[in-house]
Structures are given as C-alpha cells and as structure tokens.
C-alpha cells in the first residue's frame, strides 16, 4: 500500500503527527503576534476549530505560542479558522458584559472559489479543478495583487492556496487590519466587476470612460486570453458554447456573426471575427462588448461577504483540507505561473516522507537526544516537501518585520525633531 496517497479516513491518525512534528508554530506565531507591538494582539485573537464529526468550536484563544501549540496538539483540529482580534480574550466572551465584547481588527481578506466560475469553464464543475481552469486563479491573483498594491497601497499581501479549489488573500498592513466594515466593503465593491446572479446573462457592463482598474486588469487578461480561453477552454468551439458568447454581444451584429462562426474553423478565428464585427459599430453601445466578454470569462469573482465583516472567519494557512488532505500553503507570487495545486503536499505524503528519513536517522541519532523541541520541529518540516512553502511564508514575515522597523525608526526620528 502506498502510504503517501491520501485517504480521508486516515486523517485522525495523521493529524497528531502533523501538529507534533510539522506544523510551523514558530512562524505562525511570529505572524499573528505582529512583533508584539500591540499588547494582547495575539491573546485576543479568535481561532475556531473544526473537530471530528464536524464539531465546530468557536472563540478559542491562546495567551502565547506554547499555549496554542499545546492546545492544538491536544485537540488535533481537522480544520483551523482565524477570526478577528477582539476587545477581550475570546475564550472569555461569555463572561464579559454583553455588548462590550467586540471585534476590533482583522486582516483584510479575500476568498476566490472556483465554483463561482462554473458558468464560464468547460473543463470541470463545482468542487473539481484541473490545470486548465487553474489559470483563472492565476489571473485572479495577478489582477487583485496589482490593485491592492497600486491602487490601495497595501504592501503585505499573503496569498494562500485553500487546499482544494480556490485561493485566499490576507492583507496584513496595519492600515488594512484597522479598516471598518464599511471601508472593507467599499474596497471589495471597488474590486468587483462581474455582477449578477443566476438570473443575469450579461454580468459585465462597462461605462465610458473605462476606469483605470478595468484597463489595467484587461491588460493582464489579454496576456492569458488566447492561451487560456480560446485554446484551453475553447469557448467558441461549437454552436452551444458560442451561443453563450453571442448572447453577450449587441443584437445588431448577432446574426451576421452566427453565419460567420459557422464558416470559421477555430475559436481563435471566431474571436477575431467577433472583434472585427464590433469594431466599426455605429451604435456606441456595444463597442466594448469584446472587453466585457473577456472580463465576464476571466475577471476574478470575489465572495464579497467574506471580505466585508471584521469578524468573519477564514480558513487558516497551514490548515489541512480534510477532503483532499492538502495543506493550505502560501503561494509565492513571484513564481505564480509555476504554482501547481496538484503538487502541494498532502498530509499523508509528508508523514511518509518523515518516516523515510527517520528510519535512516534513528540508527545514528542517539547523540542528539535531549534536543529542544522547537529545534527538532524546524528540522522536521525541512525534511518534507512543506519546506519551500514555509520559506515563502518566512520571506513574507521578514518583509513585515522590515517595514515595522522602518516605521519605528521614522517615529523615533520624528520625536527627536520636536
């Protein structure tokens, strides 16, 4: 039997090992403690655990790293969610005067889920993903990451694979963590371009002039469109799928295009014809149709409710996905094109990697007995395929540290001047 193939039933056996030897507690605490600048920032943070049989426990909180570590090793959660920093310790939320227990800060978060693209991908549906449609996530990250940085000025954006079919973004700048609910929803709405539910066919309507956000996003989509949509998804392959696209162009050109499309040979060819037929359009309406189609098929689709609430919970990085066994790992945006969701280690894979090395080492290891725990864990994850992802995470943390130091310097400098 191949131990490295993940079986959901084996999760209870694997979790203790994962939390004892692999979970990067040190880095995790370093992140959420934010340099210890604000007292109680970590102790007042809500965690929630999903345990065996879908038992869901909210309002967990921990005074420090070792308490977090001990508790996680005791409870062995199937899934970990992170919530807000509250006015009081969340574990005491029942004992504080009602009304005074309030969510105060949280990272600004985004959740993009492949199921929301079901009407525009042909390869898979609902929870399934493949390398073809994964491009949608690549595009989403490119577009949002640019906007969060260039438009909103956020420096610290942690992108994380959700473990199954989507990605999350944690914006960790101090100013982002302090945003109010109204401000969060304004940011999310600004970034939302594809609108409408199951009763809407045309989900993107551009107005003139086209806002810089859209222009810049279109530039990004253009880089992927032919390869992804025309060749990969083949969105104009046959009548059934081109009818869907044609329902998005102005009626005036629809019939001509229908005839044209039958003559043409490939999606690429048909797309060219579509663009040409929209070019000289007399009616100003519809001049943007090609752009609107590109956006409807490729622009990131956000779950706005996740971003809005200060107290909304989101699955934590390095949590395991109980269905796939994959770890929620940070994504290195500089190497985004080479990120492969199917290469992300599963818990069973790592545990067997651990086994392999430890049997070899055990023979010669006696000398190292009595080594402190932390050190051993550092080494442990380094011997598995989790290592590069922890490295990405560390680089993110280093940057956070740097700007914190920079700010402190600035502040003390200013003080001196006065």
């Amino acid at each position, binding site marked *: 039997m191949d131990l490295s193939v993940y079986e959901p039933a084996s999760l209870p056996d694997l979790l203790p090992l994962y939390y004892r030897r692999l979970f990067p507690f040190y880095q995790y605490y370093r992140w959420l403690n934010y340099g210890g600048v604000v007292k109680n920032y970590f102790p007042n943070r809500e965690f929630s655990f999903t345990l065996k049989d*879908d038992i869901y426990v909210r309002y967990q909180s921990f005074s420090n790293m070792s308490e977090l570590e001990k508790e996680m090793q005791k409870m062995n959660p199937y899934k970990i969610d992170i919530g807000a920093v509250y006015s009081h310790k969340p574990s005491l939320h029942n004992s504080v005067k009602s009304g005074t227990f309030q969510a105060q800060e949280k990272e600004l978060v985004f959740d993009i889920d492949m199921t929301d693209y079901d009407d525009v991908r042909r390869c898979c549906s609902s929870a399934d993903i493949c390398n073809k449609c994964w491009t949608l996530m690549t595009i989403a990250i490119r577009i949002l990451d640019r906007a969060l940085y260039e438009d909103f*000025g956020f420096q610290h954006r942690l992108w994380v694979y959700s473990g199954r079919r989507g990605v999350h973004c944690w914006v960790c700048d101090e100013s982002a963590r302090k945003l109010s609910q*109204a401000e969060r929803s304004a940011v999310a*709405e*600004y970034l939302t371009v*594809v609108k409408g539910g199951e009763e809407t066919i045309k989900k993107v309507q551009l107005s003139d002039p086209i806002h810089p956000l*859209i222009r810049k996003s279109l530039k990004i989509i253009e880089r992927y469109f032919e390869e992804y949509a025309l060749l990969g998804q083949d969105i104009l392959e046959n009548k059934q799928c081109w009818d869907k696209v044609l329902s998005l162009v102005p009626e005036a050109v629809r019939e001509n295009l229908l005839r044209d499309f039958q003559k043409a040979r490939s999606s690429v060819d048909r797309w060219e014809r579509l663009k040409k037929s929209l070019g000289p359009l007399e009616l100003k309406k519809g001049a943007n149709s090609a752009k609107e189609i590109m956006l409807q098929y490729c622009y990131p689709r956000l779950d706005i409710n*996740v971003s809005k609430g200060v107290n909304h919970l989101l699955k934590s990085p390095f949590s395991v996905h109980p269905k796939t066994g994959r770890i929620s790992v940070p994504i290195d945006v500089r190497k985004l094109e080479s990120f492969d969701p199917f290469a992300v280690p599963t818990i069973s894979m790592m545990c067997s990697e651990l086994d392999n090395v430890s049997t070899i080492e055990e023979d010669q290891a006696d000398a190292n007995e009595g080594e402190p725990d932390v050190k051993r864990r550092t080494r442990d994850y380094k011997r598995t395929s989790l290592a590069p992802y922890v490295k990405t995470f560390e680089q993110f943390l280093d940057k956070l540290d740097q700007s914190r130091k920079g700010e402190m310097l600035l502040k003390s400098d200013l003080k001196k001047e006065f």
Partner: protein
Amino acid sequence: MVFSRTRQLRTTKRLTGDRKGDHYPFSLQFYQLPPTENISLTEFETFAIERLKLLKSVENFGVSYLKGSLEYNAKLESELRKLKFVCLAPNDEIDDKVYDIRRKDHISHFILRLAYCQSEDLRRWFIQQEMDLFKFRFNLLPKEKVQEFLRFNDLEYVAISGEEKDLLQHDLMNSTFGLSTAKLEDCEFYKVPFQAALDLVRPRKVFLSKGFAFIPHKDIVTLILNDFRTRLSKALALSARSLPVVQSDERLQPLLSHLRPYNMTSNVGRTRIPMYRQSFELSSKSFPLCMRQLHKSLREHHHLRHGGRMQYGLFLKGIGLTLEQALQFWKLEFTKGKVDSEKFDKTYSYSIRHNYGKEGKRTDYTPYSCMKIILSNPPSQGDYHGCPFRHSDPELLKQKLQSFKVSSTGINQILDLVKGMHFQLACQKYFELTHNVDDCGFSLNHPNQYFAESQKLLTGGRDVKKEQAPMESSQANPPSQVTSSLSSSTNVTSTQSEEMEDLEQILSEY
C-alpha cells in the same frame, strides 16, 4: 502631505443680540457652534417637533424614491417649505424672515442632538437623516457660493499641483465622467486617503493610487459630507457623556424623551397574527415576483444561499409565519436536498431563531423593503435573491412574464418601466395585470405591502391593516401624507439595516 485643512476656532462669533448679524450667511449650516441664546420652552418644543417631522420625511422620501432623483428633490423641497425650513432670499439679503428660519434650523438641530445622542441606534438614525438633508441642501447652493461656504466653515481642501496632474492625466480622465483634456486643465483635484471618499470608491468613480483618492472638484460634496459625518458623530458622542446633566433638568427631561418616538427594541412581530388560514400554496399567489423566484428556487434546489434565506425568511415572517412554522418549513425543504436533519439543526436553525430575535442580540428583525432589496447586496453567482425587475436580464424577465401568461402589451409596458429604472412601478404594473385592476391604488415600496394588498383584493378586504404592521418602515401610506405624529411607534429603517448587517455576518459564516 498634500492634503491639509486649517482649523481655527471662531471664538468671536456669538449668536446673541444683534439679529441682523452675519451669523447665518448661507442657506445651509455645518452646525459647528451651539446656540447660546435663551429660548422659551414653547419655542423649544415647536422647533424640535418640526425638525423631527422634517427628518422623518427625509427618511421616508429616501425609502420611496431614488435619492437625488427629480421626484425625491421635489418632494423634499416642498416639505422644507411646508415646515418653514427654507425660504428664498432675494438678492442675498438676510432679512428678519430669513434670519428666523435659519435660526430655527440651527437651534432645532441642536435640540435633536440632545434627544438623539443617547444610544448607538438613535445616533445612527439621526446622522443618516441629517446627512441626507445636508447633501440635498448643498446641491442647491449656487456654484459661486461653494468656496465661500467652505471658507466660512474652515473647510479647506488643498488641490494637487499642476505637475502631479499632468503626470496622472490619463488615469484622472479615465476615472472622471465627461472630462475632456481641455476641461482637465481647469479642474482641480484633491488628494485624500481613500477612506474619506468611500461613496466614490465603491462605484469606482474616482482614481485611486497608493491608497489615495483623487477627487475632482465636482465631487467635493463627498469630502464635505464625510467631514460632516465625522464631526457630527464625534459631537454626539460628547453630548451623550454630558447627558446626565441635561436629563436632571426637570423641564427638559419629559420633552426630550417625548422626542424619541422610536421604540428601538420592541418592534414588529410582537403583534404578529397567525399565518393565513389558507394553505401556504394558496397565499403564495399573492407573492411578488421576487419572492416567487426565491420560492421556486428553494423548491427546486432545496437550498438557498444566505442572501436568499434572509430576504425570503423575513418576508415569510412578515406575513405571519411563526418561529416554529419557519423552522419546520425550512427544515422540510433543506432536508429534501443535501442537508440532513442533524446538519440543519446545527447550521441553519440558529440563524432562523436569530431572525426571530431568539438568539444573539435578540433583536426582532424586520422584512426588507423594495429599496433595500433593489439597492443593497445585489445577487451574485448562485444567488436568487434581489428584485427581478432590477436584477434579471430583460430577456429572462420577458420569458418569465410570458410563462406567467402576462399579455404582450403588458410585458412591453413593464419592460419600458424597467428600462426607465422604475422598478417598483414595473412591479406595480405587474400587480395590476395579474390582479385585473386598472389602478392598484397604492404606491408600492415593500414586498409585504404587495402581499397585503393582494390579499385584500383576493379575500375581499378583511383584516388587512394589521398585516401591514411588520414592515421595515411603515410606508403603507403615500409619503406625502406621512406627517408622523410623535407618539406613533414606527421602526427606523437605517437602524434596522445596520443591525441586519450584523445578522448577515453571522449568517454568512455558514
């Protein structure tokens, strides 16, 4: 930083004596300094009551009409005139009449501050109405007066330099409607943190760079309103602290509490009467299209996402579904689908009980009005909530109406109204067509009102008045008639919607 504002206190200005002084040079005020003169109790009372009437009208119009639309403006203007909060000042001369009106504006605002500073809910309501009122008046201010007004109130926004403007030329033009290169030169832009201009950020009507928004001069009202809100909410928080002093004043105390007609905690649902005796399917004939759509999708998928659960669940509550019935109803549907009974109890029953005020903050939630459905939380992927007249593709809407056997002339009339963005009128037309009446005789602004009116027709008009109780804000009468007696206890829209958001947060976690 490029953005700065100077603040000096105008200690020299006092509002006593000299009636002809230049205290009120403008038709609107920023209310920075409280009045210091003595006023009689009778005057105190009339001022307060009249301003409260005004603010309630502001709220009502905002629910019934699109803010800033022609109808909205006309209604508000006539209301201001009726309650004597405005009068035309010919050639800028401030005569006694104008002075009295502006003084009343000033004093009455401060009286209501006292009455409305006491709780978070009251403050929120007051701020919202005052902001809408301010915005309306600001838009009436002649262009050449704007700068003067800003200077008078120490509101100065520093524009970006010509160089910076040149550098950003393209982006600025692409984010500002109707701005040509030529006009760009004369147009000033103000650079502020994006948090100060959320109303422009949300619909992408402003250029953003590195966390700053570049506000064109024509949108300066957004910045001013933001300032207005910030200052007012700070001031209210301060007044709340000094309240014990005011409250101990025996003369003021009864007056002030009288001015708080809104009973903020108890509301709808308490007087709920039992569900219609007829079967559920029968009364669903009286459902407006939005609810029909939700009902259908629930029956088909045995599931609704949280936006749908809220909109439909509260509607059902409004027509009389009790908590027990609601739990039963939802459970029956959901367990036909992917959810087993245990999961239902664990995941969904909490939020239903929450809707009925049995969990969390124990607030009884009110059904959504059309305005709320049309304007907030639009449906996205996988959602069936919203207003079909607003959120469906015209083509799909047409098909749907055809399937309901609406005549083609009727369909065209409806689609024309939709095209003109008159969604509620379209819905009203649909009501008329499906109930075979020429004129429905009411102005629609609430799905529960639709239901009640339909039942009235179908069952011959018995017992409908009570049905209207559970509405977001009692909008059953045409707004012009709402002269709100102070003791009536209606609900407050803005408060309700704020609390709603809290509930939505809880729901969306599932």
